[in-house]
C-alpha cells in the first residue's frame, strides 16, 4: 500500500501517505496548475504508487477524479470544508471514517482505533519537535530546515520523529533582513538557497509543510477519535482554498509584525486561483505596513526557478532600507 497525497489538507492520521512534492510529468493541462498536472502524472505513471488521495479544495484539484479513473488504483477525494464549527467537525469525522472504510475495502486491511491513536501520538510529537525548530528559525538556515522537512515527510510516519533529531541544521550569521514566505507546497528548494545567498533571512512561513503544519492544534484523544482529528485538521493556519482569508491575513500579519519582517516572498504556481485571489488582498495589507513584496511563479513542479534578477532587485531594496 503506497498512496500519494496531494496537499497538506490530507490527513496522515489514518495511514501513511507520501506527500507529493514534484514529478517530471509530461501531462500539461491547459489552465490547470502544474502541481496538479504533475501529480496526476505521477499517480498514473509511477508504478510504486497504488493509490491517490486528494482534496476538492481548488478548481485544479476539483477535476482530478475526471483524470484518475483507473479501477486498479485506490482513489479518494476529500470534500472541501470551509467552516470550523460542530457541524464541520462532525462532517469531517464522518468523511474520515468513510476514507478509512474505503482504504480497508480496497486494500483488504483493517485499521483499528489503536492504530489511529498510535499515529496521532506520533503526529503530535512531530509537531512539537518541528515547532521547537520553527521558533528558532531566525538563527538557522531555512534552506536546511526545509530540506529536513521534505526528507522527514517522505519517510514512514513512525520513523519521522527520530529522523528530525538526527538532522543537523547550521546556524547562520545573517540576522537582519528578515523575510517571510507564503505559498503552496514548495516543490523546488533551491530557490530558498538563492534567497539566503542574497543575504535575506527567512524567519517564518505559512507553507503547508511548515508553518501551517505546526500551527494545527494537537489532537486530543477522546471517545470520538475521528472528531478529535477533524477538530485538529480544521484548526490553525489555513490554506486560501479553505476560504478564510481574514483569519489567514490576521495570523500572518501578526507573525510578520512580531518578527519585524521587512519583505514577503510569495511562491506560487501558475494558474493557482486560491493564491491569485489571496495575494491581491495580501499585497494591499503589506502595502499598508510598508513591507516589500515579491511574487515568484512556477509553471510546474520541476521547473528550475531561476529568479536571480527579481530576487536580487528585491534583496537590494531590502538591504538598502
Amino acid at each position: 500500500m503506497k498512496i500519494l497525497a496531494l496537499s497538506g489538507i490530507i490527513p496522515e492520521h489514518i495511514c501513511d501517505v507520501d506527500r507529493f512534492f514534484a514529478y517530471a510529468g509530461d501531462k500539461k493541462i491547459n489552465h490547470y496548475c502544474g502541481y496538479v498536472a504533475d501529480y496526476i502524472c505521477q499517480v498514473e505513471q509511477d508504478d510504486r504508487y497504488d493509490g491517490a488521495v486528494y482534496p476538492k479544495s481548488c478548481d485544479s484539484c476539483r477535476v482530478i477524479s475526471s483524470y484518475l479513473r483507473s479501477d486498479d488504483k485506490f482513489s479518494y477525494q476529500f470534500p472541501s470544508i470551509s467552516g470550523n464549527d460542530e457541524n464541520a467537525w462532525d462532517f469531517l469525522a464522518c468523511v474520515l471514517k468513510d476514507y478509512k472504510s474505503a482504504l480497508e475495502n480496497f486494500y483488504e486491511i483493517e485499521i483499528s482505533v489503536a492504530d489511529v491513536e498510535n499515529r496521532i501520538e506520533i503526529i503530535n510529537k512531530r509537531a512539537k519537535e518541528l515547532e521547537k525548530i520553527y521558533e528558532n528559525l531566525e538563527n538557522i538556515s531555512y534552506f536546511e530546515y526545509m530540506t529536513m522537512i521534505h526528507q522527514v515527510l517522505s519517510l514512514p510516519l513512525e520513523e519521522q520523529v527520530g529522523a528530525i533529531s538526527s538532522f543537523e541544521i547550521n546556524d547562520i550569521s545573517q540576522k537582519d533582513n528578515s523575510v517571510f514566505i507564503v505559498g503552496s507546497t514548495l516543490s523546488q528548494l533551491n530557490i530558498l538557497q538563492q534567497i539566503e545567498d542574497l543575504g535575506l533571512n527567512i524567519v517564518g512561513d505559512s507553507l503547508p509543510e511548515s508553518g501551517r503544519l505546526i500551527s494545527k492544534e494537537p489532537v486530543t484523544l477522546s471517545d470520538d477519535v475521528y472528531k478529535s482529528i477533524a477538530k485538529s485538521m480544521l484548526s490553525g493556519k489555513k490554506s486560501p482554498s479553505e476560504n478564510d482569508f481574514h483569519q489567514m491575513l490576521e495570523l500572518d500579519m501578526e507573525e510578520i509584525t512580531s518578527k519585524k519582517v521587512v519583505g514577503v516572498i510569495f511562491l506560487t504556481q501558475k494558474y493557482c486561483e486560491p493564491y491569485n485571489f489571496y495575494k491581491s488582498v495580501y499585497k494591499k495589507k503589506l502595502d499598508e505596513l510598508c513591507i516589500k513584496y515579491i511574487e515568484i511563479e512556477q509553471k510546474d513542479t520541476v521547473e528550475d526557478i531561476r529568479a536571480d534578477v527579481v530576487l536580487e532587485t528585491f534583496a537590494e531594496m531590502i538591504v538598502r532600507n
Partner: protein
Amino acid sequence: MGANVEILKTQAKLMKEYYKYFSKYSKGKEPDKKVAWVTAFTPVEILEALDISYYYPESYAAVIAASGKEQDFLETSQRDGLSLDCCSYSCCIQGSICNADGPRGTAPRPDVLIATNNQCNTLPNWWNILAERYDVPLIVLDYPGENVPREMAEKYVYNQHKKLIKQMEELSGNKLDMAILEEKISNSQKSVEAWEKIVELMPERQIEPTLLFDGISFLITSRCDEKTSRLYELLAEDYSENYPKRQEGKAKAFWLGYPLWYHENRYLKESLDSFEIVGSNYITWWSLSYEGDDVFKKLFSAYNFTFLNLSQQERTKRLVHLIEKSGAKCAITLHNKSCKCDFVSASEIKIPQAELDIDMIDRNYMDMDRAKEKIGILQDIVG
C-alpha cells in the same frame, strides 16, 4: 392583454425590480431591505422568504460583457492586483467595482456575502476578496456533491442551511415563516418546469440559441418569483405557435459550454452558417431538481447536485442524454479559459466536435481564424 405584450411587460417588470437599486437607477436611494451578494447556485429561496434582496455578480459580469465594457474593467482589475488567470467574471466585476461603473451602474453595497462551492471553488475565493473590500460577513456554504455518501452530505448541508436561516434572521430582523419558504421553493420549481418546456422546444423549432441564453437570466435571478413561471409559460406558447419547425438540411449541432456573453448573438452565428444549434447544456444548468418531502430535502437535492458538482461519469451521462434528445450529430465544444471545472465536462463525448478555446467574457481571448478552421473541419466531417 395579448401574450406578446404580457411577455414584454413581465420581462420589463422583473428587470426593473432586479435593477431598481443599481446606482444608475436608484438616484442615491438606499435599498429598503438588507442586501446579500450571492453566487449563482445559492439557496436564494431562504433569502426571499426572509425578505432579503440579493444580487448576482456573475450575471452582472455577463451584462457588462454584452455592453462591450469588459476590456476596461479587465485592465483595471489587473492594475488592482487581480491576475487575469482568474475567472473573467471575477476580474470583470473587480474592475467594475474599482471604477464604480457598469452599464447599469453598480449593485447596492452588500450587507452580507454568500458563496457556495457547488459549481467551483473560484467563487468562494472571489467572495473572500469581496469580504475584505466591504468588511462584511462572509458565509461559505459547502455542498459535497457526490464525493461522499448522500446521507452524510445531506446532514452536513441541512445543518448549514439551518445556520444560514438563523444568520439571515438576525441580519434581517425577520422570523422565517416555513409556509413562505415552501411557497418560494414551489415558485422555483414551477419556474424550472416552465423553463424546461422552452428547452424541449429547441430541437424541434427554429429558435435561436440567443433567445435561450438571454432568456435563462430570469431563472437565475428571479426563479422564486411567481412571474417567472408565467413568463416562461407564455414564451413556450409563443415559440411553439409562432416559430417554424426545423427543416432538414443544415447539420444539427449542440452548443457545449458557455454562451459568449460579449457576442451580440451569444454564439458564433456568423461562422456557423451551415449548422443549426439544436441544443445546449448551459440552458439546463438551472433546471434544479427540488426533490424531497420537506423544504430541507428539496433545497439539498437542488443545490447539492448542480451540474458542475457532479462526478465526471454523471456529467457525461447527462450530456449524452441531452445531446441524444436534441438530435445533434456534432458539437461546438468550448474550452473556457475561465472555468477549469467545466473544461473537462465534455471530455468523454464521442460525436464529432469543433473544440474551441474561448473565454465567455474576454472577447480578445479567442483566436477567430483558428476557430473558423476548426469549424470548417467539422463541417467537412459532418458534410
